[in-house]
C-alpha cells in the first residue's frame, strides 16, 4: 500500500463513521460511540505511522484528484502534506481522540449520544479537511462544513431555546466572516489565476523576482484598477475576514462565549482546541499572500482581541465562559503573532494551547459533571478534596495557560513576546505582557474560587470525582500540557516558512527562552503580578470584591462591554428593518399597487364598456349608425 493513501484514509474514516452511525446505528448508542472513537483513534495511529514513515517533510508533498474543471476554473480535491498540516493533523486526531473518549463518559446518560457522536465524527472529518486542503476552494468547503458541524453540536440540546439561539448566532456570525473569505478567494483566483496554494506561492515568488511587473496581472482587479500591492492588501484583508469569523476575533468574537451552550466536550474540542484554531492555521497557510499592510491590521486586531477578551474574562462567573474568554484572548495572541509575521510562535502557541485549553475545558466539564450541571464558580468551592484528579490536572492546565515555567504555555507565550520585541512592535509587546498578567489573574481567580476555600452550596458539598473514562484523558492531556513546551515542537516548523531553523535538542529547546532574556523576565514577572493580585483578592473570598473596587468598569466587563447589545441594535435591527421594507414593497407596491391596479383597471373597463349594452333597441340602432359614421370618417374623412 502506498503511503500517500494513508492521509486519504485518515481523512475519510470519520466521514465513514458519521455515515454509518446516521444510517444504521442510531438506535444503539454504545456501538455508535465506539465506531466514532475507533475512527478518530485509528486516524491518530495512522498519522503517527505516516509521520514515522516519512517524517514531517514527505517526498510527495501533495496528492490530488481533479474535482471540478470548467474552462479556467480548475479545482482539485487535493491534500497538502507538509510539516504544518501534519502537525495540525496530530493535534486534531490526538486531542480530538482524547476528547472523544472523554465524551463517551460525559454523554453516557444522554439519550442522543449516537447523534452526538455522528456530529463529532462529521466535525472531525471537516476539520481534517481544512487542515489537509491544498487549495482555497477545498479549504472553503471544509471551512463551511466545520461551521455547520459546530452549529449542529452547539445546538445539540436543541430543546433548550438558548442552545438553539447560540447555534444560530454562531452560524450567522461565521457566515459574515465567510462572506469576506469567499470574496477573497474569488479575488485571488481572478487576480493570480489559481487557487492552489503551491501554485500561488510560485506566482508570488515569480512576481517578487520579476524585475518589471508589467504584464504581470492576469486580469485587472475586478473591484478597481489598483496597484499590485493595493490588491494584495485587499485580498489579504478579505481572507483575514474568514479567520476573524472562525477564530472569533474582534469584531466577530461574540459567538464564541454563547457557543458554550453546547456540551462541554464540544466546547473543549471545537471551541478551544481545534476549530477556532482553524483561522490561525489558515493565516499561516496563506501567509505568503499577506503583505506588510495586511499583516499590520491583523496584528493589531489580534492584540486588541487578546486585551478585550482578557478584560471581560476577569468579571465572568460561569466557569465555561471564563475559559471561553480566555480562549478568545489566547487566539488573539496567536493572530497577533501571525500579524507580527511570526507564524512559528503562532503555531507553537496554538499547539500548546490545544493541550492545556482542552485540558481545562475537560476539567471544567468534570467539575460540572460532578456538581450536576452547576456552572457558577461562586456556587462551588472546596473541590480539592472531593475531586483530586480533576483538581491536579486543572491546576496544571491553569499554570500552563498562565505561562508559568516550565509548563508548555510559558514557552509558546514567550516566543510570541519575543517575536513582538524582535519586530520592534513595542505597543503590542506591552499589550501582550499586560494580557499575560490578566490571564494569570483571572485563571487563578477561577482556581481559588472554585477549588479552594469552603464549599459554598449543597451541590458543592456532595460533589464526586468523575469516572475513569473521563479522568484518563485529563491525565493524558495534562502530561502534554506540561512537557509540550520543550519536546521540540518548534523544530518542525523550521523549514515550513521562509526562515530556516537548525534542529534543536530537547535541552536546547528547554533553554530556548534564555536567548532573549528580556521578554522572558517580563513574561514571568507579569505572571507573578497576576498571581499575587488574584491571591490577595480571592483567597477564600465569599463574594467578588472587584466590582466594588472598579465600579462601572467592572459592570462593563461583566456585560462583555455590551457588544451583543450593540450588534442586536445595529446589524440585526438593520437587516430586519430592510426586510420589513422589502416585504412592505412586495405586499403593497408590487402585489397591491401594480398587479392590483392592472386587475382592477381591466375589471373596471369591462364594467364600463358593457354599459353600452343597454338592452334598448333604439340605442343599439343608434350605436350601429354611429359605428357606420365612424367607418365613413375613417375611410372617406381624409
Amino acid at each position, binding site marked *: 500500500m502506498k503511503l500517500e493513501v494513508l492521509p486519504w484514509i485518515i481523512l475519510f474514516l470519520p466521514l465513514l463513521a458519521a455515515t454509518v452511525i446516521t444510517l444504521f446505528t442510531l438506535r444503539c448508542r454504545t456501538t455508535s460511540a465506539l465506531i466514532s472513537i475507533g475512527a478518530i483513534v485509528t486516524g491518530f495511529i495512522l498519522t503517527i505511522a505516516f509521520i514515522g514513515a516519512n517524517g514531517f517533510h514527505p517526498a510527495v508533498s501533495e496528492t490530488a484528484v481533479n*474535482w471540478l474543471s470548467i474552462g479556467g476554473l480548475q479545482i*482539485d480535491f487535493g491534500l497538502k502534506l507538509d510539516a504544518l498540516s501534519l502537525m495540525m493533523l496530530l493535534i486534531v486526531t490526538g486531542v480530538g481522540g482524547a476528547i472523544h473518549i472523554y465524551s463517551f463518559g460525559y454523554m453516557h446518560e444522554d439519550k442522543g449520544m449516537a447523534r452526538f457522536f455522528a456530529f463529532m465524527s462529521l466535525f472531525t472529518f471537516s476539520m481534517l479537511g481544512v487542515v489537509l486542503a491544498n487549495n482555497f476552494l477545498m479549504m472553503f468547503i471544509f471551512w463551511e462544513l466545520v461551521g*455547520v458541524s459546530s452549529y449542529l453540536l452547539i445546538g445539540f440540546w*436543541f430543546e433548550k431555546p438558548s442552545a438553539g439561539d447560540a447555534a444560530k448566532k454562531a452560524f450567522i456570525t461565521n457566515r459574515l466572516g465567510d462572506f469576506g473569505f*469567499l470574496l477573497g478567494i474569488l479575488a485571488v*483566483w481572478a487576480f493570480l489565476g489559481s*487557487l492552489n496554494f503551491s501554485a500561488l506561492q510560485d506566482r508570488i515568488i515569480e512576481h517578487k523576482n520579476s524585475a518589471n511587473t508589467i504584464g504581470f496581472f492576469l486580469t*485587472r482587479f475586478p473591484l478597481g484598477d489598483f496597484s499590485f500591492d493595493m490588491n494584495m492588501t485587499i485580498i489579504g484583508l478579505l481572507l483575514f475576514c474568514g479567520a476573524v469569523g472562525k477564530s472569533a476575533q474582534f469584531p466577530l468574537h461574540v459567538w464564541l462565549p454563547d457557543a458554550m451552550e453546547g456540551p462541554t466536550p464540544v466546547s473543549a474540542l471545537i471551541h478551544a482546541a481545534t476549530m477556532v484554531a482553524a483561522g490561525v492555521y489558515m493565516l499561516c497557510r496563506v501567509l505568503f499572500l499577506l503583505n506588510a499592510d495586511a499583516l499590520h491590521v491583523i496584528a493589531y486586531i489580534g492584540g486588541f482581541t487578546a486585551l478585550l477578551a482578557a478584560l471581560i474574562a476577569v468579571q465572568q462567573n460561569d466557569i465555561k465562559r471564563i475559559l471561553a474568554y480566555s480562549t478568545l484572548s489566547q487566539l488573539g495572541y496567536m493572530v497577533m503573532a501571525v500579524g507580527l509575521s511570526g507564524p512559528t510562535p503562532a503555531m507553537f502557541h496554538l499547539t500548546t494551547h490545544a493541550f492545556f485549553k482542552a485540558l481545562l475545558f475537560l476539567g471544567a466539564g468534570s467539575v460540572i459533571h460532578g456538581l450536576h450541571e452547576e456552572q457558577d464558580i461562586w456556587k462551588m468551592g472546596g473541590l480539592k478534596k472531593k475531586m483530586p484528579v480533576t483538581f491536579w490536572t486543572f491546576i496544571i492546565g491553569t499554570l500552563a495557560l498562565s505561562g508559568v515555567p516550565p509548563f508548555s504555555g510559558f514557552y509558546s507565550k514567550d516566543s510570541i513576546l519575543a517575536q513582538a520585541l524582535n519586530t520592534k512592535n513595542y505597543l503590542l509587546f506591552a499589550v501582550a505582557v499586560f494580557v499575560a498578567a490578566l490571564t494569570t489573574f483571572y485563571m487563578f481567580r477561577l482556581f481559588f474560587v472554585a477549588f479552594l476555600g469552603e464549599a459554598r452550596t449543597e451541590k458543592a458539598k456532595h460533589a464526586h470525582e468523575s469516572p475513569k473514562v473521563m479522568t484518563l484523558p485529563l491525565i493524558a492531556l495534562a502530561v502534554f500540557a506540561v512537557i509540550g513546551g520543550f519536546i521540540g515542537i518548534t523544530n518542525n516548523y523550521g523549514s515550513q516558512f521562509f526562515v530556516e531553523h537548525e534542529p534543536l535538542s530537547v535541552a536546547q529547546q528547554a533553554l530556548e527562552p534564555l536567548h532573549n532574556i528580556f521578554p522572558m523576565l517580563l513574561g514571568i514577572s507579569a505572571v507573578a503580578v497576576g498571581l499575587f493580585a488574584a491571591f490577595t483578592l480571592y483567597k477564600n473570598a465569599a463574594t467578588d470584591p472587584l466590582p466594588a473596587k472598579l465600579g462601572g468598569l467592572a459592570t462593563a466587563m461583566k456585560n462583555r462591554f455590551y457588544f451583543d447589545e450593540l450588534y442586536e441594535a445595529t446589524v440585526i435591527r438593520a437587516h430586519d428593518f430592510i426586510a420589513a421594507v422589502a416585504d412592505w414593497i412586495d405586499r403593497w407596491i408590487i402585489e397591491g399597487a401594480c398587479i392590483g391596479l392592472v386587475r382592477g383597471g381591466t375589471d373596471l373597463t369591462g364594467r364600463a364598456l358593457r354599459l353600452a349594452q343597454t338592452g334598448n333597441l333604439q340605442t343599439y340602432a343608434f350605436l350601429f349608425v354611429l359605428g357606420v359614421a365612424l367607418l365613413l370618417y375613417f375611410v372617406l374623412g381624409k
Partner: protein
Amino acid sequence: MSILTYIAGWPLLAALALIVVPRNYRVIIRAIAVLATFISAVLAVKMFAQFVPGANGFQFEQQIPWVESLGISYHVGVDGLNVGLILMGAIVAFAAALCSWEIQTREKEFYILLLVMTGGILGAFASLDLFFFYFLHELALVPTFIMIGVWGRGEKKNYATFQITLYLSIGALIALIGLIALYLQSGANTFDIPKIIEHAKTNPLAVNAQNFIFPLLLFGFGILVSLWPFHSWAPLGYGVAPSPTAMLHAGVLKKFGLYGLIRIALPLLPQAAQSWAHVIAWLCVGNILYVGWVAMRQKDLNLLIGNSSVAHMGFIFLGIASLNLIGVTGAVLIMIAHGFLAALTFALSGYIYKQTGTLQISELGGLCRKLPFIGTALLMAAMAGCGLPGFANFVGEATVFFGAWKAFPWVTVLSLWGALVIGGIYMTRVIRNILHGPLPEKWNSISDASSTWRKLPYALLLASLLVFGFLPKLLTDKINPDAQKIVNMATAGKNADVVIAPRSSGRESAHYSLAENQSRLTPAATK
C-alpha cells in the same frame, strides 16, 4: 423510437390509461401513476449513464415530421444542457408521485393531471423543436390551475390560483410571440432548433431584430422563472398549492424558461444578449437580495420556501448574464440542483402540513423531537438552501460566482451577501423556530414518516443532492462541451475574456491571451 420518447411518453400513456380506470380503484390508480413515473425515472437514469460527454451534436435523437408546411417536426434529443435536467425532472416527478399519498379526494383526476404535467415538461426539455418546446410546456398550465384550485389550501386559494395561471400565461404568450418572430426572422423556415442555429451561423439575425426579440424572450421566459419584479406569483402560488404540484412546478417547470434562454436566446441573439446582460445582472440582484429579505419576513413556511426559491433563480440568471463558460455551466448546475432542492423542501413542508394542519412558523416548534427523520431532512434541505458544501447547490452557486466575478464584480459581491448571509439568516431562523426549541403540547400526537415508502421520496431527493454535490464532475463533464458551444455563439464578435490555462496539478504558472496583453498595459499595472 428514442429513449426520450419513452421517458416523456410513459406518463402521458399512463394518464390515458387512468381515464378508463374506475375512480374507486384507488390503489390501482396510485400504482399506475407511481409505476409510470418510476419507469421514466429509471429510463432517465439509464439515458444519463449512456450519455457520451462531448459527443458531437445531439444524442438519442428522433425526428418525425409533424407539419411540413410550417417546418414543424417532433424532434427530441439531448446534449449536455438538458440531459441533467431531464434526469432531474424524471426523478422529481417520481418523488412527487410518491408524495401524492397526501391527496385523499378525487385521486383519479389528480393523478391524471400530475402525469400530464410530468409528461409535458419532460417532453419540453427533450424537445429540439421550438414549437413543441412551447407546446409541451403549456400542457402543464391547465393541470396547474385545476390542481391548485381543487386540492390547494388556504383562504387565498382562488386569488393565488388565478394569479399564477394568468401570470404564467402572460409570460408564455410573450415568449410565444418572441419565438414566432424568431422563427420568421431566422429565415430558416423551420422550427427545428439545430437547423435554425446552423442557419444562423452562416447568416445571423439582424441586430435590430435581435434587440426586438431578445427582450420578448427575456421577459417572457423571465416571468415563467419569476424574474424580479415579476416574482410575486411564485410564493403565493406555491404557498397554496398541494405539495406534489409545488414540487413539480417549482422544481421542474420553472427551469423551462431558463433552459429556453440558454438554449435559444443566447446562441441565436448574441449581440442582444451582450447588450442586455447588464440588465439581467441587476435584475437578479433584485431576486437574490430583495426577495431574500422578503423571505426573512415570512410567517408561513411555504411562503418562505417559495421566496427562497425565487431568490435562487437569481443565481441562475447571474450565471446566464455572465455569458462565459463558467457562468453558464454554473447556471445549469443550479437549475438541476435547485430542482431537487425545491422539490424536497415542498415535499417536507407538505408532510408537516399534513401532520400539523398549519405552516404558521410561530405555531410550530421543536418538531425535531417528534419527527427525527423529517426534521433531519428539513435541516439538510435548509442547509443546502443556504449553499452548504456537500450539496449540489453549493457547487452551482460557487461556480456562478466564479463566472460572474469578472463580468459583474459588484453584483457578485451583493449576491454573495445574499447567498451566505441572508440565506443563512432565514434558513437558520426556520430551523430554530420549527425544529429547535421546546415542543408545544398540541403536537404531541404527530408522527414521523415511518414506512420506507413514505421515506423514499425524501431520501431519493436528498441522495441526488448529495451525489451531485460530492461528484459535480458527473454533470460538469457533460455540460461543459455544449455550454462551450453556446458561449462561443453568444460571445461571437466580442473578444474572448481571460483564458486561464487549465492546470491539473496547479503547479505550472498561468499564461494569458494576446487580447489580455493590451489590457494589461495600464498605469496601475506598470508600477
